[in-house]
């Protein structure tokens, strides 16, 4: 049997990859993609725990989380489109009007 920790490790790896993407990418679309990656690593954890504790709650939550991710992606893309219309770009490191 594959131990639970292996799933957790995989999820951690996925999360970190997504994290690295969020920290380094300038493009908003890419950032949203990386955030999806992080969400999915969380889903992986939920499902893994669900299986290893013999309950279904985690899987239900995974479904909720996928649905929310869809909503988040939709709103996120919409925001980026609005920004793009205003600035003609979606490079987030240049959109730093909320500083200091």
């Amino acid at each position, binding site marked *: *049997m594959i131990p*639970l*920790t292996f799933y*957790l*490790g995989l999820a*951690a*790896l996925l*999360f*970190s*990859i997504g*994290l*690295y993407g969020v*920290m*380094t990418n*300038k493009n908003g679309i890419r950032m949203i993609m990386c955030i999806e990656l992080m969400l999915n690593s969380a889903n992986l954890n939920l499902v893994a725990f669900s*299986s*290893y*504790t*013999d309950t*279904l*709650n985690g*899987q*239900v939550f995974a*479904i*909720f989380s996928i*649905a*929310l991710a*869809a*909503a*988040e992606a*939709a*709103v996120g*893309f*919409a*925001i980026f*489109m*609005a920004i793009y*219309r205003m600035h003609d770009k979606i490079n987030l*490191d240049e959109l730093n009007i909320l500083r200091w």
Partner: protein
Amino acid sequence: MKINRPLAFLVALLFTAVIVVGAFGTSWNTVSELPENPTDQSNIEGIGMLLFTHYVAPFEVLSIVLLASLIGAIYMAKGEGNQ
């Protein structure tokens, strides 16, 4: 401030290490054997049951959230000027 890739990499690595060490260092309270159900591998039925009984309220809320975000996304993506 410029984006600092090496730093980001290091931070990501550090975080992975912390999580992995945490995950491997914890003794999880799990079942000893995964359930064997050769007749029906799927648990769709169980999930469906849960979703419409115990989690029905969050489910309904989620539908409203989805609807709201849908409308919002359409409104924002469409823009103000062009009908």
